[in-house]
């Protein structure tokens, strides 16, 4: 859950050293895997979030391991950790005291990524992405109205955690460099993710009602998820100020000989001036029902006859607000992203053979004109950079390193 914060800083040029327990971060075992083959050095998930970083292993359960760790911290501007509450308590108990480290190294920025924060009644609670999405008021808004609350895909609470922590790290780093004073930075995933409630909490504050799951929302023709010939689109046509009006949709259908009776001016008139309040007035709604149903039927048939990409590109060409419900393949094959050279080509060593995996890696989230992201190395193998980091940078002698390796501290 802490990987993404380090990735964001690494993308910006920071030298990020991944400190792993002996045997490697257990999360190296998470799918998906290169060629579907599970292993510690084959996780695509790990590779994506850790490209550009270096790796050392150290056993924080050993005295010497903890000493090595504190020596490494002395070379750092920022420490990022996502220890569980139990781990944090344990580390403090055996002598890895964050407050003392901060006192010894006044400019240090120490970032703790936590599920529920460092204090408060739930600070000891366990967290996962699902739990954070539930606890932050997000899952209740996602999902089908007739089904259960739903998790948003892509571990989005962990992503929010990483983005929150990276902002905190940068803010505290700027402050430390300006004043010499570092500090503790704390991300609560629950709090960070809760900002995505949009207006739900604000509505409660003003009106005392909770927002409900709206699902696909198929009440107004032109607004909602529609089946296409090969998938789905999201159509958002007919809201004043948001792209071309409904009459443009009718024109398009007419040009393709599929408008049927929607050329009757009453349709354009109704939907170009559509007032959402109609849904609050039963009588008005009943009067309009035949028009709504007819428009929905003709439009659904039109959308179903074209591919998602055709509808997306041709619709957008007409300034109609239509989005493809893109699959990973659609994004992978996007001409737009290819033309923008968003993807990064990288050779990733694996334990599956001598040949590295040639990866086409999703690019960074931002582009800085003078300091562009430079992911210049693949994700590290477990402990790959021991020699360079412990000996050359931290200053441990090669002889001592052999001792530490022998006792399993590294």
């Amino acid at each position: 859950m802490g990987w993404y914060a380090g990735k964001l800083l690494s993308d910006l040029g920071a030298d990020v050293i991944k400190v792993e327990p002996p045997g490697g971060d257990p999360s190296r075992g998470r799918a998906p895997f290169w060629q579907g083959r599970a292993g510690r050095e084959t996780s695509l998930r790990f590779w994506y979030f850790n490209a550009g970083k270096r790796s050392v292993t150290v056993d924080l359960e050993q005295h010497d391991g903890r000493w090595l760790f504190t020596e490494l911290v002395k070379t750092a501007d920022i420490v990022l950790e996502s220890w569980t509450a139990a781990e944090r308590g344990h580390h403090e108990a055996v002598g890895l005291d964050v407050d003392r480290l901060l006192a010894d190294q006044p400019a240090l920025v120490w970032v703790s990524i936590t599920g529920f924060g460092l204090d408060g009644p739930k600070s000891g609670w366990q967290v996962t992405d699902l739990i954070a999405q539930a606890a932050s008021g997000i899952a209740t808004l996602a999902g089908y109205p007739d089904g259960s609350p739903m998790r948003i895909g892509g571990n989005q609470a962990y992503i929010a955690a990483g983005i929150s922590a990276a902002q905190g790290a940068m803010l505290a780093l700027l402050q430390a460099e300006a004043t010499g004073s570092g500090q503790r930075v704390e991300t609560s995933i629950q709090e960070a993710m809760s900002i995505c409630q949009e207006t739900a909490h604000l509505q409660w504050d003003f009106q005392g009602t909770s927002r409900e799951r709206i699902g696909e929302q198929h009440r107004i023709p032109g607004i909602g998820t529609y089946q296409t010939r090969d998938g789905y689109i999201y159509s958002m046509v007919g809201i004043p100020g948001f792209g071309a009006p409904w009459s443009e949709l009718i024109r398009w259908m007419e040009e393709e000989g599929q408008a049927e009776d929607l050329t009757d001016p009453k349709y354009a008139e109704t939907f170009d001036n559509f007032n959402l309040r109609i849904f609050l007035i039963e009588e008005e709604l009943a009067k309009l029902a035949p028009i709504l149903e007819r428009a929905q039927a003709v439009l659904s048939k039109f959308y179903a006859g074209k591919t998602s990409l055709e509808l997306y590109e041709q619709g957008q060409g007409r300034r109609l607000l239509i989005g493809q419900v893109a699959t990973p393949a659609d994004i992978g094959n996007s001409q737009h992203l290819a033309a923008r050279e968003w993807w990064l080509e990288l050779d990733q060593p694996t334990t599956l053979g001598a040949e590295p995996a040639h990866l086409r890696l999703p690019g960074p989230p931002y582009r800085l004109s003078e300091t562009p992201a430079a992911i210049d190395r693949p994700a590290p193998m477990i402990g790959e950079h021991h020699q360079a980091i412990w000996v050359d940078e931290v200053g441990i002698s090669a002889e001592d390193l052999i001792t530490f390796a022998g006792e399993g501290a590294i």
Partner: protein
Amino acid sequence: MTDSTNSQPLAGVRVADFSWFGAGPIAGRTLADFGADVVRVESEARVDGLRLGQPQKPGKSGYNVCAYFNNFNAGKRSLLLNMSAEGAREVAMRLIASSDIFLSNLTPRVISRWGLTYEDLCEIKPDIIAAYQPMQGLWGPHRDFLGFGAVLTPTTGISHLSGEPERRPVGVGTNYPDYVVNPGHTVVAILAALRHRRRTGQGQRVELAQIESVAATMGPALLDYTANGVNQIRRGNRSSWQCPHGIYRCRDDANGRERWIAIAISDDVQWDALCTTAEAASFPADERFGTLLSRRRHEDELNAMISDWTATSEASDLAERLQSAGVAASVVHDAEDMCEHEEHLAERGFYAYLDHPETGISLYDGPIVKLHETPGGLSAPAPLFGEHTFEVATERLGYSADEVAELTAAGVLS
């Protein structure tokens, strides 16, 4: 400025915020939360849709009573500048010349029309940090495609990967990427650019193509396609390596409100703890569920049995009991929980309640991250529409009162 703002990381940093709706203004708010002086540029000719959105304070109307807008603009100053009026650009340039950071999520078309490209800005402020958030980027075949958060969720794969596999993609119920992903990435990039400028004196352009910013959060699924040719599909609330892993219905509360609990079992220790907590239920003794693999094979049956068990339980009591036993669990909070019943958030003081001249004491999100020594926070509620036009024009832009009157008469300022 007060002492408390001087001690903030961004004290003295000036921001010209030409953004609107969600993704831009939230980035500006985070900068304001940590001490920056953020001037939000608005106009009567082009009112931010969120000022007219929902929820509005009951019984009130006008530009100042929508919490959707207010929440994202707290702590800023509002300057009314009609960019379509003759002479407006000169005022805009004066604002930018007095700023460290320019922020905008206007479309590339409008950026060009208003003469606010990075090159334009560099002419009057060579070391400006100019952040743009175009939907598809500043260039590329889809550059002029329209988009809002509601369309971005589908086009970046989030919708496809959310929902039940046998049902249609469900979307996420909000304009999700607007709130943390896009503003958060923007702030990280701006802060990095600020650091670079402090070290070298060099400004730069930050381009956050929203489609790239959101797609970057879906990295593992995208890489599974580019590396393996696997086109992933949504899997509901299930996980490939955790089981059970789901959201289960609990007993409705006394008012008939649906209550749900999320439970995520990541290892044998947690599974055993769940079984101990649920000893009266039917699944603990069922030998089909002894290993992760067999639980995954019988996940439908297991979920049905867990639902039978949770259906008679009170959600928050059950979450407390499970967490005490070492199981990752939480009530699926709704807005009422978040605002009224989540004592944890209240004790941490996450939500801020600020007194706004038109909406009274109102709820605002706290800062997205907590810095222990310079905690930031909201210095003021949202600005009224044009509340600071005179103040900003005279103090920051250096116009005399007479000049402000002339610009106002000319329809430039209001």
